[in-house]
């Protein structure tokens, strides 16, 4: 059976190479125009009419591009993220001299290898649909970003070469200096992958916050200015962190899938540990993600107040409520998984009594987070209420309340993690009791400060402080996490370790891991739609108008349906990849 999977990879590899060749050929054909900046680019952004958009019968161009882009982004997020923590695990394995890290890293990589081919195929599909349905937009973008497409193709080749060397060389390069050379290849793979994403981000962010062009779209000749537009850096950071979280969640779901089908205790233990490690990486990366999101949003507002208001104050605000529900569900699932993990050790049971309090705080924060500011009311309800806002719950719909709720939710999720760690060991240092008191003091002060910032600066000062107060709230949360981990580390030096059994987890805990992966996927699709749709009727915001028949913002219901169908298709393919990964693992076990 192993041969069938290898045959599949062999079949897909030429496809990948072919797409890379197409990209390079396309870049070479247009090479001259990249550097000459002829009359085409001097004339600025083209003014288009409906007739400039090719029609293909029975195919909606926008929908085709949307689906291709969405599929490509999901797969790309997955394959950029997995090698990052594969490399991390490989290094940890070498430093700690523990083979299990190496084994699980290799298994992570095997799961992603098929996804690499699918990323290239969906990328090719995206390029084709863009060229077919939006040729003038592509021509305009290429007149500015031409040289970067060549760079993209080069990074693509570099990434493919290092990926296959990394994967196929894993076993041959496993000892001595060859192992370090292998780690070097992994580093090259990650560098190329991240650089690839940064290049693509420049194109996407230029469409939202164009720079290096004048009001008519005439390119001034400074490509670096076009690349480093307002959103480029925050988008790079946001996608980089989100990809790690996403990759972790998908591998966690893979481990859950394999755990549920495990036949032996050893297998269960292995996949339980794998699921825990992956979910830890996912949640660890999720914690700083809202902060990168704040920066991204702040830059949107800085570029255009109008765009910012469309994003947060207009019809799209409802998608932020959906976002809150999905992220809230994700946090509940992550906490539930940690609480189930108390059962891996008999000593963990002493912490079960705290679960109800943590659950209460997280549920209350969750409710605040998804409380809408404006209500959808019938005329009778609006008359009875006398306003669009609820008299008591209305203030909870504003951002200061939500920021406060999110930070408290993060702190209590971290508390669940601390208790989970304590389920495994008991400190023996004499000052352990004082250390715990210090941590309790830290938590108490942090919660008071976060609530004070949210209530006082959010509701009793001017609007500048309303936005700005989110920064010290975030800083407080980060400080607590770092300080608590330092105290925890010092306190548990030489601690007594309790019996700890991997695999002693109820089956239902694994569904929490699957829920996390589904929530992430859905969330990326929905919020990606919002980010893209705030350009409204513009291809390139305020520079190049979209004149196609689809130059309107679809209803939220329509967008949600498209993203939901995309999510189902993507996750079905992911399940297929899991199945292939399982075949590979089985074949190796047989050998």
């Amino acid at each position, binding site marked *: 059976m192993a041969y069938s999977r290898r045959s599949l990879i062999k079949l897909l590899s030429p496809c990948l190479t072919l797409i890379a060749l197409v990209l390079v050929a396309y870049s070479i054909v247009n090479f001259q125009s990249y550097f000459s900046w002829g009359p085409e680019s001097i004339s600025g952004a083209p003014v288009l009419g409906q007739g400039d958009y090719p029609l293909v019968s029975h195919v909606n161009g926008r929908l085709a591009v949307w689906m291709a882009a969405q599929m490509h982004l999901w797969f790309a997020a997955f394959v950029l993220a997995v090698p990052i923590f594969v490399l991390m695990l490989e290094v940890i394995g070498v430093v700690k001299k523990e083979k299990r890290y190496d084994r699980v890293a290799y298994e992570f990589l095997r799961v992603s290898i098929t996804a690499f081919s699918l990323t290239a195929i969906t990328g090719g599909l995206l390029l084709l649909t863009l060229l077919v349905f939006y040729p003038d937009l592509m021509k305009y973008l290429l007149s500015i970003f031409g040289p970067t497409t060549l760079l993209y193709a080069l990074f693509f080749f570099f990434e493919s070469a290092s990926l296959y060397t990394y994967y196929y060389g894993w076993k041959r390069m496993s000892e001595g200096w060859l192992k370090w050379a292998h780690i070097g290849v992994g580093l090259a793979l990650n560098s190329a992958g991240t650089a690839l994403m940064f290049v693509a981000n420049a194109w996407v962010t230029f469409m939202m916050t164009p720079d290096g062009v004048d009001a008519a779209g005439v390119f001034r000749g400074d490509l670096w200015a076009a690349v480093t537009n307002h959103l480029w850096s925050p988008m790079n950071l946001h996608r980089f962190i989100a990809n790690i979280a996403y990759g972790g969640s998908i591998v966690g779901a893979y481990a859950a899938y394999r755990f549920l089908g495990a036949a032996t205790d050893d297998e269960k233990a292995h996949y339980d540990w794998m699921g825990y490690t992956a979910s830890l990486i996912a949640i660890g990366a999720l914690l700083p993600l809202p902060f990168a999101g704040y920066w991204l949003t702040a*830059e949107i507002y800085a570029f255009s107040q109008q765009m910012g208001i469309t994003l947060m104050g207009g019809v799209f605000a409802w998608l932020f409520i959906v976002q809150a529900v999905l992220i809230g569900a994700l946090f509940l699932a992550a906490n539930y998984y940690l609480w189930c993990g108390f059962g891996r050790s008999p000593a963990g049971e002493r912490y079960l009594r705290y679960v109800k309090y943590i659950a209460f705080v997280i549920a209350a924060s969750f409710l605040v987070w998804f409380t809408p500011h404006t209500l959808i009311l019938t005329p009778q309800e609006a008359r009875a209420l006398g306003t669009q806002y609820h008299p008591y719950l209305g203030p909870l719909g504003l951002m200061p309340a939500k920021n406060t709720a999110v930070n408290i939710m993060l702190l209590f999720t971290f508390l669940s993690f601390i208790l989970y760690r304590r389920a495994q060991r008991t400190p023996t240092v004499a000052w352990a009791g004082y250390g715990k008191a210090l941590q309790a003091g830290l938590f108490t002060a942090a919660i008071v400060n976060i609530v004070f910032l949210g209530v006082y600066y959010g509701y009793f000062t001017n609007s500048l402080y309303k936005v700005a107060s989110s920064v010290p709230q975030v800083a407080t949360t980060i400080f607590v996490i770092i300080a608590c981990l330092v105290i925890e580390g010092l306190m548990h030096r030489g601690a007594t370790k309790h019996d700890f059994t991997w695999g002693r987890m109820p089956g239902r805990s694994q569904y929490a891991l699957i829920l996390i992966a589904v929530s992430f996927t859905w969330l990326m699709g929905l919020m990606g739609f919002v980010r893209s749709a705030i350009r409204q009727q513009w291809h390139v915001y305020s520079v190049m108008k979209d004149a196609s028949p689809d130059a309107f913002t679809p209803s939220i219901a329509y967008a949600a349906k498209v993203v939901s169908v995309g999510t189902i298709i993507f996750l079905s393919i992911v399940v297929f990849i899991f199945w292939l990964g399982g075949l590979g693992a089985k074949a190796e076990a047989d050998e």
Partner: protein
Amino acid sequence: MKSVFIFIVSSIGFLAFFLVMDALLLNAQGLSFIFRG
């Protein structure tokens, strides 16, 4: 008893630290590294 004392003192101490941090970060200059303009 000593633990309760440490809890109270550290709560007040950390709160004072956080309030100073808030004041520094809410100062426009302090935020300029995040927000442009």
